[in-house]
C-alpha cells in the first residue's frame, strides 16, 4: 500500500532535468473545489491538498522506508555479521528500484547531487570527524596524509593513463574518450569512500593503526579528489593542456587542502568561544555545534575548497573545548543527534544508490568497464605497496604485509564517487558510460570486497585491535612514557612528535584553554581520568544498588562474604566512558548508559557551580549536597575501611565498593531519610590511623579483572584525614559546611563500632599530611592557587 502511494505521489514530482516527466494516470486528488459549475458551494467537509505537502511527505516516507529496512536487517542477526549493512541497503534499494522501474516511475528528484553534497554528506562527515579518536589520529597523521594525498594522486593518474591506453584499442569501441576525460573519470573512481569503508571496517575490528589510516585516508582524500575533479573537468573542456596548468593545479591543491583546514579551525574556535557564554541558554547549546560545522562546510563549498576537510577540522577542534563548556544534557544531545543524522544520511545514500542503479539509463561497454574494475583494483594494490615501502621507515609501527593487504582491499568506493559521477558536465560525450562504470565499480567493491573482507582478514589474521580498558595505570604510564620520551628527545637534541605534542599541550594549557573554556584550569588527563573513573563507579553502584542501607552499615562481613562480593563486583565490569570511541560500534552511541553520563556531567556541573566565583542560592546547593552526601555514604566498606567521609563537593570518590548486591539492596538514597542517620560518618578529627584497606586488599587481589581495583582504591583514598573544612571553604559554601557538620554528629555513634581493626601496614595512608583535606574538595581553590 505504501508503494502504491509512493508510486502515485512520485508521479507529481518535478523530475530530474535530464529525464522526461512521466505522469501516471492515477493521481491522488487534490480535491480543489471547482468553480466551473454554478453550484452552491458548500463548506467542504473533507479535502485533500496533496501538492502542498508533497515534498516533505515523500522525503519522510523515503526515510522511513530506509529505516524500516535497517530495522529489518537486525531482526536476523546472522546476516549483519557476514554482509555489511551497506550491501543490504543497496540490495533493498535495488529491489525498490526494480519495482519502480517496472511501473515506469522515476526516482524521486530529491536525489540530486546537490542534495547529496549539501545535505547528506556533511552529516556523515561530521559524525566521522566528531567521533574520531584523536590520539591515534595525530600519531598517524603523517601516514594518513601521505596515503590520502599521494595515494589518491597515484591511483587517479595510474588508472587514467591505463584506461587511456585501453581506449586506444579499437576493439572496445571507446576511442572517442580522450586523455582528459579518462583522467576525470579516474579521479572520480579513485576516491575511497568513508561511508562504505567505515561500515565494513568497524565490523571487522582491525587493529587501530590500520583503521585510523584507512579512516583518515578516506576523509582526507576529498581534498585531492576535489582538486583533481575540478582541474580535470576544466581541462576536459580545453583542447590543449599546458604545463602551466599542472602547476596551477598543484597550487590549487594546496589552497584547497590548507584552506579547508584553516576554515575548519577558524570555525571550530569560534564555536568553542561561543559556547563559553551559553551557560544561560543551555537549550540551544547543541545548535551551535551543528550550525558552526555546517557553516564551515558551506563556506568552504562557497570557495570551492575542500569542505570535507573544513568540517572535519572544525569538529576536531571544537569538540574538545565545547564538551567542557556545555552541560551534560547538551553533550548527550549533540552526540545523539549527530549519530542519528549520520545514520539516516548513510542509510538513504545507500538506498538511493540501489534505486538509481536501476532507473538510470545505462550504457554498458564490457571492455571499458571490466578494465576499469581491474585497474582500480590493481592500481590500488600497487599504490599501497609502493607507498608503504616508502613510509614504513618513518613509522614506529611499520605496516606488515597483512596490514597492507587490509589497506588495499579495504579501498571501497561508494557514494562520493557516485555523486561526483552525476555531476559530470554534460559536454562529455560518454557521460552515461562513465556513470555506468562508476556504479559498476561501486557495486563491485561494496558487494564483493565488502562481503569478503571479513573472512579474508580473519583468514590471514591481520592484527586485531585490543579493546583496551582505560585504567589509571595505563594513563599514568602513557603520560610517563610521553614525558620521558620528550625529555630524552630534548636531551638528544632531536625533535619528534613528542616534542610537538608537548609544545602543543603547553600552548593549549596556557592560552587556548583560557580563552575558550569557561572556567579554565589546566587539568591533567590523569586527574580527569581518575575522576571519570570514580564517577563511573558511582554510577555503576547506583545502578545496581537498592535496599537497606542499615544492614550494610552495621553488619560485619566475613572474609568469605567479602570474597563473594568481590566476585560479584568483578563480574560487573564497568564500562568506562571512552575518550576515543569512534571505532567501537558505529551505530551505537559511545556511551551506553545515559544515566552515567548524566551523573558524571552533573557532578562536573555541580562542582563547577560550587566555585567561589559563582553566586547562586545556597538552597539549591544544599539540596544537591544532600544528594551527593547521601550517595556518597551509601556504600561503606565497613570493616577495613576507615570510612572516611568527605563530603565532597564533587564526590568523585563515591564509588564505594561493597554493595553486596546479593544480600541487601539499596534504595535510592534520596528517598530514605532515615539512611541519613545511619550513615556512619567519621568524625575525621578523631581518627588518626587509617587502617582502611587491609581486608579490602586481601580480597581485592583475588579478583581477576580490574574492576575492583578502582573501586577499592577509592576506599583507600577515603581514608579519614583530619578534615578542616571550615577554614577552607569560602563563604558560599558555609551553609553546606554546616550541613555537613550536622551529618557528622549523627554518624558519630556508628563510628565507634566500625573502627577499622588493624591498620594495613602497607598503606602509608596514616602519614598523610595534616593539611590534607580531600584534594577534590579543594577544587575551588585551584584557580587562585594557580595564579
Amino acid at each position, binding site marked *: 500500500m505504501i508503494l502504491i502511494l509512493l508510486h502515485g505521489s512520485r508521479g507529481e514530482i518535478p523530475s530530474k532535468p535530464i529525464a522526461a516527466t512521466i505522469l501516471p494516470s492515477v493521481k491522488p486528488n487534490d480535491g480543489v473545489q471547482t468553480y466551473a459549475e454554478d453550484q452552491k458551494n458548500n463548506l467542504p467537509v473533507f479535502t485533500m491538498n496533496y501538492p502542498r505537502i508533497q515534498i516533505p511527505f515523500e522525503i519522510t516516507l523515503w526515510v522511513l522506508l530506509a529505516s524500516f529496512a535497517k530495522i529489518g536487517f537486525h531482526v536476523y542477526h546472522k546476516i549483519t555479521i557476514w554482509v555489511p549493512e551497506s550491501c543490504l541497503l543497496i540490495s533493498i534499494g535495488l529491489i525498490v528500484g526494480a519495482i519502480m522501474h517496472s511501473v515506469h516511475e522515476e526516482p524521486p528528484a530529491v536525489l540530486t547531487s546537490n542534495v547529496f553534497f549539501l545535505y547528506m554528506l556533511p552529516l556523515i562527515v561530521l559524525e566521522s570527524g566528531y567521533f574520531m579518536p584523536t590520539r591515534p589520529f595525530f*600519531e598517524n597523521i603523517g601516514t594518513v596524509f601521505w596515503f590520502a594525498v599521494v595515494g589518491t594522486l597515484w591511483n587517479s593518474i595510474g588508472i587514467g593513463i591505463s584506461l587511456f591506453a585501453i581506449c586506444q584499442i579499437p576493439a572496445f569501441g571507446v576511442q572517442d574518450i580522450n586523455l582528459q576525460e579518462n583522467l576525470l573519470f579516474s579521479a572520480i573512481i579513485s576516491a575511497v569512500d568513508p561511508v562504505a569503508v567505515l561500515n565494513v571496517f568497524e565490523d571487522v575490528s582491525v587493529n587501530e593503526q590500520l583503521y585510523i589510516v584507512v579512516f583518515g585516508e578516506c576523509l582526507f582524500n576529498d581534498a585531492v579528489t576535489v582538486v583533481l575533479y575540478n582541474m580535470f573537468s576544466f581541462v576536459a573542456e580545453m583542447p590543449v593542456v599546458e604545463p602551466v596548468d599542472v602547476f596551477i593545479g598543484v597550487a590549487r591543491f594546496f589552497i584547497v587542502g590548507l584552506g579547508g583546514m584553516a576554515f575548519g579551525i577558524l570555525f571550530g574556535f569560534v564555536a568553542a568561544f561561543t559556547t563559553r557564554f551559553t551557560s544561560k541558554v543551555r537549550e540551544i547549546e547543541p545548535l551551535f555545534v551543528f550550525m558552526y560545522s555546517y557553516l564551515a562546510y558551506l563556506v568552504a563549498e562557497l570557495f570551492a575548497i575542500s569542505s570535507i576537510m573544513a568540517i572535519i577540522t572544525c569538529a576536531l577542534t571544537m569538540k574538545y573545548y565545547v564538551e567542557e563548556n556545555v552541560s551534560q544534557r547538551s553533550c548527550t544531545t549533540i552526540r545523539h543527534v549527530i549519530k542519528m543524522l549520520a545514520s539516516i544520511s548513510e542509510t538513504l545514500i545507500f538506498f538511493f544508490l540501489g534505486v538509481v542503479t536501476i532507473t538510470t539509463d545505462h550504457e554498458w561497454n564490457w571492455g571499458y568497464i571490466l578494465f576499469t574494475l581491474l585497474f582500480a583494483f590493481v592500481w590500488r594494490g600497487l599504490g599501497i605497496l609502493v607507498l608503504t615501502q616508502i613510509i*614504513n*621507515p*618513518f613509522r*614506529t*609501527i611499520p605496516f606488515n604485509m597483512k596490514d597492507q593487504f587490509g589497506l588495499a582491499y579495504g579501498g571501497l568506493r561508494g557514494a562520493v564517487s557516485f555523486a561526483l559521477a552525476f555531476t559530470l558536465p554534460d559536454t562529455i560525450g560518454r557521460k552515461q558510460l562513465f556513470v555506468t562504470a562508476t556504479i559498476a565499480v561501486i557495486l563491485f567493491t561494496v558487494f564483493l570486497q565488502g562481503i569478503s573482507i571479513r573472512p579474508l582478514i580473519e583468514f590471514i589474521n591481520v592484527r586485531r585491535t*585490543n579493546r*583496551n580498558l582505560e585504567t*589509571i*595505570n*595505563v594513563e*599514568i*604510564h602513557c*603520560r*610517563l*612514557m610521553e614525558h*620521558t*620520551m620528550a*625529555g*630524552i*628527545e*630534548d*636531551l*638528544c*637534541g*632531536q625533535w*619528534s612528535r613528542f616534542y610537538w605534542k608537548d609544545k602543543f599541550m603547553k600552548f593549549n594549557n596556557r592560552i587556548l584553554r583560557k580563552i575558550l573554556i569557561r572556567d579554565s584550569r*589546566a*587539568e*591533567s588527563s*590523569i586527574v580527569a581520568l*581518575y575522576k571519570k*573513573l570514580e564517577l563511573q563507579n558511582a554510577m555503576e553502584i547506583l545502578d545496581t544498588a537498592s535496599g537497606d542501607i542499615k544492614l550494610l552499615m552495621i553488619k560485619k562481613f566475613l572474609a568469605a562474604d567479602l570474597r563473594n562480593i568481590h566476585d560479584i563486583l568483578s563480574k560487573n565490569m564497568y564500562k568506562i566512558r571512552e575518550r576515543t570511541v569512534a571505532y567501537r560500534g558505529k551505530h551505537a552511541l559511545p556511551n551506553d548508559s545515559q544515566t552515567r553520563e548524566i551523573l558524571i556531567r552533573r557532578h562536573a556541573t555541580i562542582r563547577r557551580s560550587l566555585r567561589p566565583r559563582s553566586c547562586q542560592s545556597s538552597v539549591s546547593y544544599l539540596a544537591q549536597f544532600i544528594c551527593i552526601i547521601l550517595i556518597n555514604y551509601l556504600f561503606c566498606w565497613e570493616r577495613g575501611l576507615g570510612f572516611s567521609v568527605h563530603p565532597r563537593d564533587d564526590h568523585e*570518590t563515591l564509588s564505594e565498593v561493597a554493595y553486596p548486591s546479593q544480600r541487601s539492596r539499596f534504595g535510592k538514597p534520596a528517598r530514605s531519610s532515615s539512611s541519613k542517620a545511619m550513615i556512619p560518618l567519621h568524625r575525621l578529627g578523631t581518627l588518626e590511623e587509617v587502617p582502611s584497606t587491609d581486608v579490602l*586488599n*586481601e580480597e*581485592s*587481589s583475588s*579478583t*581477576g579483572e*580490574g574492576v*575492583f*581495583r*578502582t573501586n*577499592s*582504591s577509592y576506599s*583507600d*583514598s577515603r581514608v579519614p584525614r583530619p578534615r578542616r573544612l571550615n577554614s577552607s571553604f569560602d563563604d558560599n559554601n558555609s551553609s553546606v559546611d554546616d550541613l555537613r557538620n550536622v551529618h557528622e554528629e549523627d554518624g558519630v555513634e556508628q563510628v565507634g563500632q566500625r573502627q577499622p581493626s588493624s591498620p*594495613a601496614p*602497607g*598503606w*602509608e*595512608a596514616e602519614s*598523610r599530611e595534616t593539611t*590534607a*583535606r580531600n*584534594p*577534590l574538595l579543594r577544587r575551588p581553590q*585551584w584557580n587562585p592557587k*594557580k595564579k
Partner: protein
Amino acid sequence: MYNYKHYCKNLHKYIHIVDVCFFTVSQEQIKNLYQRFQQLSGNHEKISRDDLERIPALNNNPIRKQIITAFFDKRNQHQNDVGSLDEIGFEQFLMVMSHFRPVNSTATEEEKVTVRKQKLRFLFNMHDTDNDGIITLDEYRTVVEELLSQSGAIETEVARSIADAAMLEVASTNVHSPHSRPRMISMKESHLSILNRFRWINIFSMMSIRFLDMNSATMRCGKLSS
C-alpha cells in the same frame, strides 16, 4: 667540532656496545649522538648531572629529575650493579639510549620480548628510586606527583589518591600474591603482570626514538631512515 680522533679510537668500542644491546643504529647515528654528547659535556669525556640539567628544553618536563637520574643509574647499564654514577662516559650514554631503540620488524619474537623487557626495566628503574628492586607506594606516589606537578597546582592529595588507585589496580591484577598487602610492586612478580597488562600499550611505539640526522652546530633536522 668533536674530538674526532678520540671518537675514531673508541669507535670499535661503541660498535661493540651497540651490538651488545641490539641497538640497531647506524654509524652515522652513533656519530650524531657522539656530537651531541660532546656538545652536552663541553668537549669533555664525561657528562655530569649538571651538564644535563643545563639543557633548557628540559626545564618544562615534569619528570626531568627522574630522566636525568636514569642516565646516571647503574642499573640501566645492562649490568647488575646498583647505585648511581656521578658522571658517565659516552659508552654509558649509549647504553642508556639503547633502551629507546625502535624495534625492527624483522626482529624475532624472542628479541622483541627481550627488548620489551628492557624498556620496561628502564621504566621500572625510573620509578624505583631507592634501588631496592621494589616500587613502594611512596615511590609510585612520587612519580604521580611529579607527573602532575606541571598541570596547574594539583595538591598532593589528589596525587596520592591517584597513586593509590593505581596501586590497587596493580594489586588486583597481581595474581601471584592474593593475600599480600599490595603496597609494593616488586620487580619480579610485577614484571610479569605489568607485561601482561601493558601488552597492549604499544610500548614499542611509545618508547622508541627515530634518530634523525642532526648537525649539532646548527641543530638542523634532516630525515634519516633508521
